[in-house]
């Protein structure tokens, strides 16, 4: 019994130190957003200070350069899932339910797109978007983001559809319902949690992406992530403003992941590990 107590205390202490290591940097960075600038670098580091909203005000109110960037991020992320979801749902359904030749190869190809080097796509798309006059538009970013969000969504949605019992659909088929009718009135409602989870992950994917907007966006279509860079200039590094902008950019994905809770492991492994 005593042994057990010592063991439990040991594990608790270990987990506590683990948490400090993994949460500490986030807290430290959030604190930077509300610090008076003169306390940003002190020796020893100052843990207590009088919080100020100056940096947040500068970044989002006056002059508020990052407010339109926040709007862009929201528009681009929503636009991305709007195109992504319908396309992915049909594909995931077909890949789950029908015997398609080369299914394994197709899934492997999707995985390759999802995990492949994004920079490879960057140069061709930079030149293509220039040539077809879409350069610098939100639409160009939304389109290129499909390269990663569609394969991701197909993988995740397929894992959810695989879990649904096929008997219900077969029964409906016997009753004479068509494929589309079955899909819309049986599979889709049953699969609603899967669709919502996929949508939330795809949203975070688009929200956190930087590689594409770095090259494809301009001053008008820059996302909030790109905005963070604008306070890191050669003439001076505004750490408070960087952190203020980043803090806002970080908050939404954090909330979404908290809401996803049980599905986090499944989503992050593209449905291959059911946590």
């Amino acid at each position, binding site marked *: 019994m005593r042994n057990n107590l010592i063991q439990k205390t040991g594990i608790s202490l270990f987990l506590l130190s683990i948490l400090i290591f993994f949460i500490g940097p986030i807290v430290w960075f959030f604190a930077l957003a509300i610090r008076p600038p003169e306390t940003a670098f002190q020796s020893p*580091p100052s843990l207590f200070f009088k919080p100020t909203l100056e940096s947040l005000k500068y970044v989002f109110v006056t002059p508020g350069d990052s407010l339109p960037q926040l709007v862009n991020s929201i528009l681009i992320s929503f636009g991305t899932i709007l195109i992504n979801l319908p396309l*992915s749902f049909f594909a995931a359904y077909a890949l789950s339910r029908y015997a398609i030749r080369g299914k394994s190869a197709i899934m492997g190809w999707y995985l390759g797109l999802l995990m492949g080097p994004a*920079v490879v796509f960057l140069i061709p798309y930079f030149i293509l978007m220039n040539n077809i006059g879409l350069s610098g538009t939100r639409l160009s970013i939304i389109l290129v983001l499909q390269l990663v969000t569609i394969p991701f969504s197909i993988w995740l949605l397929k894992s959810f559809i695989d879990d649904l019992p096929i008997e219900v659909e077969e029964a409906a088929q016997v009753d004479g319902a068509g494929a589309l009718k079955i899909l819309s009135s049986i599979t889709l409602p049953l699969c609603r949690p899967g669709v919502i989870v996929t949508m939330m992950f795809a949203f975070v994917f688009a929200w956190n992406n930087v590689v594409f907007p770095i090259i494809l966006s301009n001053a008008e279509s820059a996302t909030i992530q790109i905005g963070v860079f604008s306070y890191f200039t050669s003439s001076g590094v505004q750490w408070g403003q960087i952190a203020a902008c980043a803090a806002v950019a970080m908050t939404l994905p954090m909330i979404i992941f908290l809401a996803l809770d049980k599905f986090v492991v499944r989503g992050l492994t593209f449905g291959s590990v059911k946590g």
Partner: protein
Amino acid sequence: MIGPSFIFLFALTAYPLYFSIKNAFRYWNLQTSPVPLHYIGFDNFKNVFAFTPFFASLRNTLIISFGGLLIELALGFIIALALSARLKYVNIVRALLIMPVTVAPVIVGFMFRYMYWDIVGLIPWLANTIHFPQPEAGYLGSPITVLPALLLPDIWQWTPFFALVLYAAIIGVPHEIIEAAKVDGASPIRIVRSVILPTIKPVVVVIGLLQLMRLFNTFDLVYVLTNGGPGDYSRTLSFSLFREGLINFNIGVAAAMTIIILLILNVIVFAYSKLFMKGTKF
């Protein structure tokens, strides 16, 4: 039903591939011409090795990929074991532990850039306080320490991922088996080695591949933290490709480099699946 997305994705991937294959054999610098110039055979490929720090980038990329994977896997496994002791507050720990994964990699870069800053950031201050050796140019500024220093943010961000996925796999191991092993007098280490590890191996193999590929493509952290420096000591292949194509505008050379990188990646994935994934089906 798979048609629309298939055609759409096919078009989205075929174009860059066609673009890279075509221009890998043409002379084209965007600063001198808006369109590709003449056919030059394999000169672009020769130039990748002659004029870009390709081998340094390859070396760094491999160190980051395999070093990062091993460290994150090992640390994640230890944390997963601790979580599987099923203490009361394990769900809170789990929810908090996932937070690093939610942060965009560029923001992780800024987070650590702030902590590494000069001699006044948190990390140099901590190192000073405990008299941990510190190069004069800082951890990010010295050729010897820059790769570990670059890897630290990645370890910070992705170890929780391993911990949570492995935790999910470990609690999937039937309780009776572990109890039976205990009754038979197996030591905890023996239980881990003979019961837990074999059961979670399929999961380790899958997430190992996913993370290996992610590490291989490391770009964001380099872009924010070191810009490839000092010298070429922290350049990765993705970063070198970015520099060649979108800073130097050598589209032809970048296209050749793209093809070489994709070949290397395919070899790694092929070797990995031959070694560890026999019989795995998607």
